[in-house]
């Protein structure tokens, strides 16, 4: 462990004392509770932990104190993370507000907007949803058509969004809308509004995994106050791109569901149980063993790359080129792991519901199906490759009239 000197030792003692006094031991290792669908679990220990961390601001340790954040330095945040890991504590302050909208508003919002919206994210009082994708605007996000007209004393929004994560539970929405129909990227604005505003209708979409994490969201003559605009009029695309960077690093880094498969049963342990071992203790199916080893090595290479990119970013080398690969690699590793686990469990891993299957088996099938979304949302696998080829490798766009 790095030696941070006297000041940080003091902070370490403070963090340790506070965590020991406030982290409910019953919550140790139960980070999965965060992913339970709905308005959040009602477990009183969980609620108490949310309240304590919210008031302390340590769910977002480096956000400014002026808006309720922890106000810690990067080094102090590292110490806090170490102290949390030491006792099996985890941050109960999450969701899109923390991962995507908060950091974006801190960068682009007015003082008034920050004072109004950041503290409620810090305390996990308000849940945000993301109005980006539309039926006709998926990977080609900038072709979005939801119309937003200036009606003098308010904006008038008409259109629809799709794949709105958690819209049925959300309090507020950050949304991309078209404010100029004569331009593509330069006709998009970034607005925010209360989901209780009249004219908003939410319909959950049932997915292949049986759950409904995403919704269709319809806007019919929705009146939004003029102060809802974040950043300049028709300047929303730059803000959206910045927000997507936060989203992608979150998906890859484990706060999103890209790495969620990694929380499940380790494939090696499952294989020892479901497939068995030979007299030397090796997984009995040699072909499967080889693929498990390949997967574990890919996962390790990814973990080492996260560490390297972090070290490079902290040194004076500037942003690491390695960061551009994180979303694709993280989501691929998670999917690979879920596929392997299902294969290892055989028919037991295909249990859908009811008797005959244990919790881990039922989780395996849902994780496998749910994880398919990770290479589609937040910029699909293919879009990430386009970004790498254009921004990093400098390869040109194809000619539109090419005869190939």
């Amino acid at each position: 462990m790095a030696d941070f000197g006297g000041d940080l030792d003091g902070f370490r003692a403070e963090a340790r004392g506070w965590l020991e006094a406030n982290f409910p031991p019953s919550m140790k290792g139960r980070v999965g509770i965060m992913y339970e669908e709905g308005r959040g679990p009602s477990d009183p220990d969980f609620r108490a932990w949310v309240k304590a961390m919210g008031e302390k601001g340590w769910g977002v340790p480096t956000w400014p104190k002026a808006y309720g954040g922890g106000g810690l330095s990067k080094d102090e945040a590292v110490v806090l993370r170490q102290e949390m890991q030491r006792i099996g504590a985890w941050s109960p302050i999450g969701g899109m507000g923390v991962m995507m909208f908060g950091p974006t508003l801190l960068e682009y919002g007015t003082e008034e907007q920050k004072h109004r919206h950041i503290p409620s994210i810090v305390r996990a009082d308000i849940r945000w949803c993301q109005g980006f994708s539309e039926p006709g605007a998926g990977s080609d996000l900038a072709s979005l058509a939801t119309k937003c007209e200036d009606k003098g004393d308010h904006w008038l929004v008409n259109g629809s969004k799709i794949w709105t994560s958690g819209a049925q539970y959300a309090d507020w929405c950050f949304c991309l809308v078209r404010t100029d129909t004569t331009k593509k990227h330069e006709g998009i604005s970034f607005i925010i509004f209360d989901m209780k505003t009249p004219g908003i209708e939410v319909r959950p979409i049932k997915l292949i995994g049986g759950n409904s994490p995403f919704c269709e969201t319809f806007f019919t003559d929705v009146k939004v106050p003029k102060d809802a605009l974040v950043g300049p009029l028709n300047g929303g695309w730059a803000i959206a791109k910045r927000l997507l960077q936060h989203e992608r690093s979150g998906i890859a880094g484990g706060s999103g569901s890209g790495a969620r498969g990694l929380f499940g049963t380790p494939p090696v342990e499952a294989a020892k149980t479901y497939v068995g071992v030979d007299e030397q203790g090796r997984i009995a199916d040699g072909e499967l063993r080889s693929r498990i080893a390949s997967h574990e090595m890919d996962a390790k290479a990814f973990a080492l790359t996260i560490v390297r990119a972090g070290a490079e970013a902290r040194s004076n080398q500037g942003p690491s080129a390695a960061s551009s690969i994180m979303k694709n690699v993280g989501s691929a590793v998670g999917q690979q792991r879920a596929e392997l686990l299902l294969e290892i469990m055989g028919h037991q891993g295909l249990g859908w519901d009811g008797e005959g299957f244990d919790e881990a088996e039922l989780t395996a099938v849902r994780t496998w199906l749910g994880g398919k979304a990770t290479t589609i949302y937040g910029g699909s696998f293919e879009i990430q490759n386009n970004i790498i080829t254009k921004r990093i490798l400098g390869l040109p766009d194809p000619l539109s009239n090419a005869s190939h």
Partner: protein
Amino acid sequence: MAVLTEEQSMLRDAARTWTQEKSPVTAFRKVRDSGSAIGYDPAAFAEMAEMGWTGVIIPEAFGGSDFGYLSLGLILEETGRTLTASPLLSSALAAASAIILGGNDAQKEAWLTKIASGEIVATLAVDEGAHHNPEKTALAATASGAGYSLSGKKTFVLEGGAASLFVVAARTAGKAGDRDGITLFLVPGDATGLSRQTLKLADSRGVANLTFDNVQVGADAVLGEAGKGWDLLDKTLDRARAGLAAEMLGAALQAFEVTLDYLKVRVQFGQVIGSFQALQHRAAKMFTELELARSCVEAALTAIDENAADTAELVSLSKAKMGDVLHLVSNEMVQMHGGIGMTDAHDAGLYIKRARAAEATFGGQAFHRDRYARLNGY
């Protein structure tokens, strides 16, 4: 790129400048076309020694700089880029590691200074068949007078034609497959009963098979403890594997960059072929894999320098990953260049040949995947 010290940055920059100016791919091509039996240019190796590269991991007391394995890896990455053939890996890294880890003072005194100065070429003689499998060591070392008599064979010894000192894995007890009973010996190249046959491999490096016919060595030729040489051999091989992975990283980066440049200039259907998404996404895949491989290679070298508990695991990870990635990139280099990539005049052929030889050396992908699994208890 790992966060480097100032010394490491200077070393890497010097290596880059020297390889680009003094040892470009054309230099390797010249060695190949000359039909050289040793497979490298001794004058170029003398320059490398002059710059101190042969002493990077050797303690200062024996004429080295003791800069560590990550530092030597940075140099190997640069020599790998231009396919520079030299005994840097076999002598200054692999054999030197064996003596640093297992040698007594007299052995270190006798050999390390000469390796550090480039005066001699030393190398490991471990494999006995087509595949790397050190546990299967069978070359017999039987007690004879005050020393031992060695009989058997060694295959695909790097720089086997040029070496004047061999670090030989032999069996003093047990049977092939046992870890117990393996002993390492220091055997001079001119020992009576030792004969060598130089081999011409596709990658044109200097490789030889050795035959030991009652080669007599004294007890002072034993490196480390007789019969207990497995750990020393395993640790030595891990250092060689990590160094080779660094060389492979350089070769893969160069192969990728040359290919990427070609995608930007080759015009078909009225546009550069790099504008076609079918090729763009394969390029993105290669870039992604190279970034992952770099993380593994640097982690393995750093683990060796820090004597970390998970060194073996990280080394197998890096050799396997680097093997897969170099395999992919060298194949794509030929394919994406099309017809020109099939010609001997183009460098693509040199990279794909070197790739396969490097993959097979010190354990291929299958060997290291199996080892990774075993190290992790499955």
